[in-house]
């Protein structure tokens, strides 16, 4: 279980003022859970992910992963970035194998393992290509495979599909669900797309900015339905889905109005 307990973050802004980026956020990610943080930019969702990844220390509160306190980055938490951060001088398969290289595995062994992961994300044909030869969607698939390579306990995804066109984005969401169903990884996923949040999450945290905090929570099961049926269309068109979408849209707009009024 990943436990985030009363996590708060204060930044020092350039003009000397204090920015309250994250305000007492608490939630858990159970085994096989996908927790999605949804919100407009500035709502602290990336700050939250950076803290869980260990890139950023908390001002207050604690984060523990299976009982161990999180204080620095580690191979037990795989991160997929918004902008892919693949190494341009390494081929796709060697990029995927990077974490295994750090772990000291032999070249042959890590290539075999990386190949398996490329099969999982459907990119075996491009194993020897270089990142600059790939499209945005393919790069993010490499990013996912790379994050999975050290067999982390949880996958942290920071708006990984935000820069993709909507068709590719849908394909990537379906791919992610199939990867999740096959690997049983816990996932913490950040997005500003309501549809994406509803489709992927087992739990949804709706966040609002200044200070970044959780304003609503939902338990979801669309992702289970998709994993069972593979039928995206009927899920997205179901009244349950559309009603919830409008409800969340209203919450986000209210949070926004509240902020402008204040």
């Amino acid at each position, binding site marked *: 279980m990943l436990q985030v307990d009363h996590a708060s973050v204060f930044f020092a802004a350039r003009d000397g003022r204090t920015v309250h980026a994250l305000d007492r956020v608490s939630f858990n990610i159970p085994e096989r859970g996908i927790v999605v943080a949804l919100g407009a930019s500035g709502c602290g969702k990336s700050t939250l992910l950076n803290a869980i990844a*260990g890139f950023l220390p908390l001002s207050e509160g604690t984060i523990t992963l299976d009982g161990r306190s999180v204080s620095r*980055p580690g191979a037990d938490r795989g991160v997929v970035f918004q902008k892919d951060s693949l190494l*341009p001088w390494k081929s796709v398969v060697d990029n995927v194998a*990077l*974490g295994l290289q750090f772990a000291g595995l032999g070249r042959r062994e890590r290539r075999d393992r990386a190949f398996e992961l490329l099969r999982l994300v459907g990119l075996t044909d491009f194993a020897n290509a270089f990142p600059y030869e790939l499209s945005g969607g393919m790069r993010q698939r490499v990013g996912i495979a790379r994050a999975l390579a050290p067999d982390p306990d949880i996958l942290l995804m920071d708006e990984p599909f935000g820069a993709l066109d909507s068709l590719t984005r849908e394909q990537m969401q379906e791919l992610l669900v199939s990867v999740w169903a096959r690997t049983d990884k816990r996932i913490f996923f950040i997005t500003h797309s309501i549809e994406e949040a509803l489709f992927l999450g087992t739990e949804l945290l709706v966040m609002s900015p200044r200070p970044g905090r959780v304003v609503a929570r939902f338990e979801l099961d669309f992702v289970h339905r998709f994993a069972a049926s593979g039928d995206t269309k009927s899920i997205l068109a179901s009244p349950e889905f559309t009603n919830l979408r409008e409800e969340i849209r209203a919450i986000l707009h209210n949070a926004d109005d509240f902020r402008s009024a204040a």
Partner: protein
Amino acid sequence: MSDIIEARPITASQREAEPKLVRMPSFGVADKPTIAISIGAAIACLGLWWLVSRLGLVSHLFLPRPDEVWTQIGVVYRDGYAGASLSEHIFASLFRIVVAAAIAIVVGIPVGLLMGLNRWAKGILDTPIEFYWPLPPLSYLPLMIIWLGIGETSKITLLVLAMFAPICLSAQAGVRSLPLERVNAARSLGASRLQLFISIVLPSALPEILTGVRIAFGIGWGTLVAAELIASTRGIGFMIMSASQFLATDVVFVGIGIIAICAFAFTAGIRILEAVLVPWKGKL
């Protein structure tokens, strides 16, 4: 709601003639070919040179004809010049510049990387480097002679000082240009500090470092003639200076030509090295 007028997929009709190919006009030079123009310009320059010297517009003492310079290459190659053969002159210059480059690279890259990574290193070394590197090498040449004498040491030290700065500064710039996300990605994949340095920092800085080395060689050739002013008996720079004292303009031209060819060859070599080592440069 809009009405659907036609829902059939539109298929391309058969065409008989080859289609006219169009492209978006680019702005500036972009990647339009310039090689033919450059070759034409070079031939025009040679032609102008030949014409000016042939017609006697400039005194023969100042401007020899191209064919005389060509002949002089043969003479200098056969007989040598000022007590040394042509290959000895070339070897002396190459030796100095290569040794100086090796020292500047071996020292400059680690120092530059360290300055990019460590606050103390940057703070301490910034002042002396920023102070000395804009100075023209000729201005501290007398100091080199006073401190290090007139042997090879002072010449090579002068070259090292001239070549060190661009390499060191480019290594620093290489570290600075490293995206934080790349570092964070590696750390979350379990990289130790050493692994981070070897697998991420070093290769990320490599394109900038190679650019620095290329610039350093340019500056190095420029400084070489100055270095060989110090009581030399060998070297292309010495050959040029010696020839100028006898108004042997054709030999001066031969020397200039040799330096140009050497400098061009080094630049081309480093460009090839860049193509092999950093083929991804500018692509991601």
